[in-house]
C-alpha cells in the first residue's frame, strides 16, 4: 500500500502573529516557519503504517516556495521515503491546492492520501474534502483512529457530540485530527540520513493547474483586545450585571 502525505509550511505555532501595517495580511518577515502541526500527525500516521507493515511507501508532497523543501526534509527525517515539491511562490487557495494534489495523485496512484484536517495559518479546513470530491474517492474527515487493511480502511471520526466509526473503500482521503497520535521528533541520525533522500521538483504547469486566486482579501485585522474581567460577590450581582450592564439576559 502506498500513502501520499501532503504537508504545508506555515508560521510556527509558537509565533505571536502580527498583522502588517497596511492590513493586507500577516507579517511573514523573519518569522519562524514549521510544518503544519496537523500535517505532522499525518506524516506520523503514514510512518507508523509503514513500521507496522501496513504500508510499503510513504511519499510527502508540498506546494509552495523554495523553503517548502525544508518542510519536506522534516517529513523525510520523520520517515517518509521520498518527496515531491511543487514549486509555487505567492498565495495558494485550497481549491488550487486540491487540484494540484489531484494531479499528483494521478501520477503516484496512492491507496491513501492522509492530510491534516486544516492548516493553522488560514484554518480553512477545505483541502481534503475538495480533493476527495475532485477524485471521487471516499473520505474520512477529523480522524482520531485509523485501521487500514486489504482494500478497506476503518476510521474513527471526531464529530460533534461523540465519535463515529466508518468503513471506507480504498482508495480514500483521510483528514486527521489532533488525537490520532503524538508525532515523533526527527532524530539527528535520521535528519542526517534524510539529506540523501530524493525530492522531485514540479511546477503547477506540469500538473496543468491554474493557480490564480479566486478570492480577494480586502483587509486583515487583529482580533479585538480582550477586556479585563471583574469579580462579582454573589449570584444576584452576577445576574444583575448580565442583565443591566451586558444586556445578555
Amino acid at each position: 500500500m502506498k500513502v501520499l502525505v501532503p504537508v504545508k509550511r506555515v508560521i510556527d505555532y509558537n509565533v505571536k502573529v502580527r498583522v502588517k501595517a497596511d492590513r493586507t495580511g500577516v507579517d511573514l518577515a523573519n518569522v519562524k516557519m514549521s510544518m503544519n502541526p496537523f500535517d505532522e500527525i499525518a506524516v506520523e500516521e503514514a510512518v507508523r503504517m509503514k513500521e507496522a507493515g501496513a504500508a510499503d511507501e510513504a511519499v510527502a508532497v508540498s506546494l509552495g516556495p523554495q523553503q517548502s523543501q525544508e518542510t519536506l526534509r522534516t517529513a523525510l527525517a520523520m520517515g517518509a521515503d521520498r518527496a515531491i515539491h511543487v514549486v509555487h511562490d505567492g498565495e495558494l487557495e485550497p481549491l488550487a491546492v486540491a487540484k494540484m494534489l489531484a494531479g499528483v495523485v494521478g501520477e503516484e496512484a496512492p491507496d491513501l492520501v492522509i492530510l491534516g484536517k486544516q492548516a493553522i495559518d488560514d484554518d480553512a479546513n477545505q483541502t481534503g474534502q475538495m480533493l476527495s470530491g475532485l477524485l471521487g474517492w471516499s473520505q474520512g474527515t477529523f480522524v482520531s483512529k485509523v485501521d487500514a487493511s486489504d482494500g478497506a480502511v476503518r476510521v474513527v471520526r471526531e464529530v460533534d457530540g461523540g465519535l463515529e466509526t466508518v468503513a471506507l473503500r480504498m482508495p480514500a482521503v483521510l483528514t486527521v485530527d489532533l488525537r490520532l497520535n503524538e508525532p515523533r521528533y526527527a532524530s539527528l541520525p535520521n535528519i542526517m540520513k534524510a539529506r540523501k533522500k530524493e525530492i522531485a521538483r514540479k511546477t503547477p504547469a506540469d500538473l496543468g493547474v491554474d493557480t490564480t486566486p479566486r478570492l480577494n482579501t480586502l483587509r486583515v485585522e487583529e482580533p479585538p483586545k480582550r477586556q479585563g474581567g471583574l469579580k462579582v460577590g454573589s449570584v444576584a450581582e452576577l445576574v444583575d450585571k448580565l442583565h443591566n450592564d451586558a444586556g445578555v439576559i
Partner: protein
Amino acid sequence: MPLDRATLDRFLETVDSFVAERLIPAEAEVDATDRIPDGLVEEMKRLGLFGLTVPEDYGGLGLAPPEEMEVAWAVSHAAPAFRSAFGTNVTIGSQGIAIDGTEEQKRRYLPKMASGEIVASFALTEPGAGSDAASLTTRADRDGNGYVLNGVKRFITNAPVAGVFTVMARTNREERGARGISAFIVEAGAPGVRLGGPENKMGQKGAPICDVIFEDCRVPGDALIGGVEGRGFKTAMKALDRGRLHLAATCCGLADRLIRESVDFALGREQFGRPVAEFQLVQAMLADSRTEHDVAWALVRDAARRAGEGEPIARLGAEAKYYASEMVGRVADRAVQIHGGSGYIDDYAVARLYRDVRIYRLYEGTSQIQQLVIARDMLKEAGGSPP
C-alpha cells in the same frame, strides 16, 4: 562529516521543540523527585543526543566542535540535569576511549555509548585528590595478564547508572606524579566494584553522583586504555579539554534561558503602576547579563572553530570554561534579583537554576585551576619558567 547549515538548523529546531515541549515541563518534577523519568531518558537516546561526538565510524554523529557547542547551547535551555544525563557520554566518559583507545576498545564500547545503551562515567577525583588530581592514590597493580584495582573515587557523575567507568589509577608506585598514572576501562558489573550512597546535592537534582569503590577489582590487560601504561593522566586531560568547551557552551545556554525568564518576568510584573522592565536599574541588570552572555558565547564559538580546525586550545578552553561559568553565576544572581521575592521560590525556574549553575565553577577544574592554566600558559609563552 561537517553538516551543512540547513541540516544543523533542522536538528537545532528539533532540539528547541524537545526542550520546550518535553524537558522544561518536566523540570519541577525532576527537581522534586531527584530523578529524570526513564521515558524522557529513552527519548533523549532516540533523538541521538548520547552520540553527538562519537565518530560516525563507531555509530555516533561525529559532530565537529562548533556543531557540538550549538547543540549543547540549545539543550541547555532546559534544567542542566537533562544535559548531564547524556553529557558524560558526549564528553569525559567517552572521549578517553575515542581519543586514546585501541581500535578494539573503540569498537567494543563507543557504539553502545553513542546509542545510550551504556552510560559512561569518568572517575578521576578521590577523597584526597581533587584539584591536585595527579596525586591520586587509587592503585592498579599488575597481576598476571591483568590488573587489580584498589581505591576510592569521589563525586562521580552518573556513577549510579553507569555501565562503564574510565578510571585513572596509579600503575607505578615509584612515580608519584602524573607519569605513574594509567587509564582503565572498568565495567560497572566487574567484581570488586561497589557504589557509595547517593549524595544530597545543592542543585542539579536528577543528575546523580556517588563514590565508586574498588576492592581487589580485577580487570583484564586489555582494559588499559591505549594499551600503554603511564599515559592515563594525559588521556584524562585530553578528555577534559574537550569537555571544558562543552561545559562553557552549556553555561551560555543556561544564561540565555535565565535572561529570557528575566525579560518575560520584568515585562509582566508591575510595580509603581508599570512593568518593572521600565525601570532603568532593572534594565541595567538585563543589559549586563545579555552583554556578558554574548561575550562568553563569542569566546566559546571562536574556541570551537579553532578546535575544529585542529588548533590546540588548552588555554582558550580554560578561558571559556572560566569566564562562562563565572558569567552564568552572575546572570543567575541577577535573574533572581529581577524576580524579587519570587526568585527565591522554587516554583520559579530561576530559583532552581540559581542552585544548578553553582557547580560549573567547581567541577572539571575550579575557577582557580583554570586561572592557573591560563596564567601558566601566558608565562610560558613569555619565556618565563612558571612554578
